[in-house]
């Protein structure tokens, strides 16, 4: 799939902008703070309904304005789709439309336009908090499987109620037997989400390893799903929750479940978060993103769009080449950089490309 064009209105520092893109490589150049990342952010939002930089939609509205609106036209295998997302500051309401039809839920938009984003923040993925890695997993899975987001939201709701229930039992306002009614729903959702994640990671790990091998040439870099439930089924989880109950009531939080999952990166079997060098971390993240792209392409039958935000300058020649190898394929890519970076390698791809220069919220 590829993005034919996009419209941004009062989004970040853009007033009103329409851009037509190349199906292959789109180079977005400009000085810092001019709006290169904002353009990629808009495309990411059209894919996931959220920004990758903030949870607050009010931050996305141009200063002094009341609404933002972003839209794009996506060319898929057999047809085109129009995606629109708008937000009203006053009503604090975000709405999405798919080819003109308003969607009852924002999450219905996910999976229409698939993107893989690689931004400087991702370089923290290996050594950063598990939350960042779970976020990666969840965005990845939500693009792969339609029902995943709904199930995850349901899980979070049930867990929030269960945690409140634990606290009310702790303060003796609830009897302990109320918890059972939450445990059953909780166990069902927890096991289902773990199963989905485990299955996907089993398929994904070999692809990751292959990319890591190709990029580094030597290191034995692998990825492993570290599962909180460790393969438990509903019945064994319920039994385990019973033994954990006294401690859970004291702490008032749920101690076991997919919200405690992690992805482990291993170098020769050792945990990369403790030992990885800067270079190895970059290899890991790059392999992760490239494997994600290839996985999505095979699973959905269409290549996702690749968004590379300012990462080129962070990579050495070998890693750059690995990336360019992908860009020169059928994948539509958006690459941001300052005016004087990266051009030589890019031109080597031989693919038709389009250059844009961004200045103060305007694309030239």
């Amino acid at each position, binding site marked *: 799939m590829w993005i034919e064009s996009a419209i941004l209105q009062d989004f970040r520092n853009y007033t009103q902008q329409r851009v037509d893109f190349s199906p292959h490589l789109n180079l977005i150049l400009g000085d810092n703070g001019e709006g290169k990342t904002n353009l990629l952010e808009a495309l990411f939002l059209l894919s996931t309904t959220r920004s990758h930089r903030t949870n607050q939609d009010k931050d996305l509205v141009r200063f002094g304005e009341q609404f933002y609106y972003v839209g794009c036209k996506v060319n898929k295998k057999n047809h085109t789709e129009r995606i629109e997302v708008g937000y009203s500051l006053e009503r604090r309401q975000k709405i999405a439309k798919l080819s003109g039809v308003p969607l009852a839920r924002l999450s219905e938009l996910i999976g229409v336009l698939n993107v893989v984003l690689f931004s400087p923040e991702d370089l923290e993925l290996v050594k950063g908090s598990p939350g960042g890695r779970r976020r990666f997993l969840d965005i990845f899975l939500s693009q792969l499987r339609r*029902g995943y987001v*709904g*199930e995850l939201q*349901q899980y979070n709701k*049930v867990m929030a109620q269960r945690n409140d*229930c634990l606290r009310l039992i702790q303060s003796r306002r609830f009897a302990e037997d109320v918890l059972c*009614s939450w445990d059953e729903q909780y166990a069902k959702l927890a096991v289902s989400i773990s199963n989905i994640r485990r299955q996907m990671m089993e398929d994904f790990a070999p692809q990751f390893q292959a990319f890591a091998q190709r990029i580094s040439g030597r290191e034995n870099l692998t990825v492993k799903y570290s599962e909180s439930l460790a393969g438990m089924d509903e019945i064994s989880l319920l039994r385990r929750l019973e033994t954990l109950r006294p401690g859970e009531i004291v702490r008032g939080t749920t101690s076991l479940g997919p919200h405690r999952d992690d992805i482990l990166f291993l170098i020769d079997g050792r945990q990369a978060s403790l030992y990885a060098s800067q270079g190895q971390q970059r290899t890991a993240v790059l392999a992760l993103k490239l494997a994600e792209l290839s996985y999505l392409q095979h699973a959905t039958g269409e290549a996702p769009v690749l968004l590379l935000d300012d990462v080129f300058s962070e990579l050495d020649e070998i890693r750059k080449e690995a990336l360019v190898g992908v860009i020169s394929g059928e994948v539509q890519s958006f690459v941001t950089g300052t005016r004087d970076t990266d051009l030589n390698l890019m031109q080597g791809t031989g693919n038709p490309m389009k250059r844009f220069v961004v200045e103060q919220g305007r694309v030239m």
Partner: protein
Amino acid sequence: MSSFPTAIENLIVQLARLPGVGPKTAQRLAFHLLSLELGSVRELADAIMIAKETIGYCEQCFNLAEGNMCRICQDQSRKGEILCVVEDPRDIAAMERTHDFKGLYHVLQGAISPMEGIGPDQLRVRELLERLKEDGINEVIIATNPNIEGEATALYLARLIKPLGILVTRLAHGLPIGGDLEYADEMTISRALEHRRQI
């Protein structure tokens, strides 16, 4: 803040407290009321007062009732062996529209929701258990809402009622009649798949 006389201002504030009524609607309603004849306004005011003064809860099922017992509990033709448990009196109205259910009801007046501090003690659970001990009830249909709070309530009640040797059933989850499969959401379809039945 506003240039209206105090009495109008007060009326608007009162109306705006109603569910689903915002400041603009409240203002429109207030001006409409003022434009009516005195008799019509008095009828409305009386209707509100009379409803409030005469309607209470049925002492058996906690449905809304005029007097001590609601019409359904008073109706001798209804089967006393089947009890349908709902969250709200409005759910009874929904069930009654089908004309398919001939048993009696029990209104919980809510669902278990720890976030809102609502547990079994805040609901009519104790009264339900009392009823089950006394009467000759042999089936309890749990018709709480198909959301997580309604589901938790159903599971909680089932655990309490089953040991009494009473059959406990739950309304089925599934696809809406007359709808298209392609428009149903994933959760509904996977539930419908899970609870599929032989034909």
